[in-house]
């Protein structure tokens, strides 16, 4: 929803560790590596967004009734005992 999921510039705190993978380069290639760094960061962010999307798709599925049924049975069992 918010820009920090996928910003066009700047670095969201959550993805800051994506920089860890960028290796230092000789100064002669600095400009080139800066562009490459932006590109790599963008790509890592895109993968990160996808990863969360993939996980959240399952989180957002309806929970099968079986789960609540099993828990309900266990709960009534334990209150009978207690």
């Amino acid at each position: 929803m918010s820009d920090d999921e996928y910003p066009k510039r700047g670095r969201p705190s959550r993805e800051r560790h994506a920089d860890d993978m960028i290796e230092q380069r000789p100064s002669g290639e600095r400009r080139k590596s800066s562009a490459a760094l932006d590109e790599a960061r963008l790509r890592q962010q895109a993968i990160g967004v996808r990863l969360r999307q993939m996980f959240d798709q399952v989180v957002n599925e309806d929970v099968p009734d079986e789960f609540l049924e099993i828990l309900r049975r266990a709960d009534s069992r334990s209150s009978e005992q207690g």
Partner: protein
Amino acid sequence: MADDTRNRPSPTAADDEAFKRELVQLIPHLRAFARTLCGDPAAADDLAQDAMMKAWDARASFQMGTNMKAWTFMILRNQFYSEKRRSWRQSQLDQEAAERTLVAVDDPEAPVALDELRQGLAMLPPEQREALILVGAGGFAYEEAAEICGCAVGTVKSRVSRARRALHAILEGGAYDRDGEPASDAMRSILADAERLSTVR
């Protein structure tokens, strides 16, 4: 954890009720984590149910107010690996299922590029995949992920970092291959969809 169990009253019905409420809210997350471990949705739900019941049975040892999500994820993960140890043959099948259907979803409209991410994830070593999923998708801090996996924080950090790099390389072009299409298509479609996805949440 902290030596803080002294003078704790035995759990009451109200405690059980509060625990149960919180546990129920975690079920969707347990299912999602189980799906990343098992691949096969039915096996994943079995695992998630087992973990849920283990957590329920162990509720007296849980301290309300601490991180129940991390605690239940740890239970689920331990359950998964102890089952794996019990049956190596089964785990082989699980692995094959995982490679086919890692985090399969019943959504016909699921973006195509998710398939590619799933397959990319399936190619990572399990410990890297798990670390990346906990931190990158599950929303856990490195410290929490370390606790869940029973390893050092630095180990989790390096696994996540290596997983990111490897996944990027797989999607970008190296090992990934699908139906003879150029592998870089995977990364392109991920980039193309990323902006749209960022507005979905």
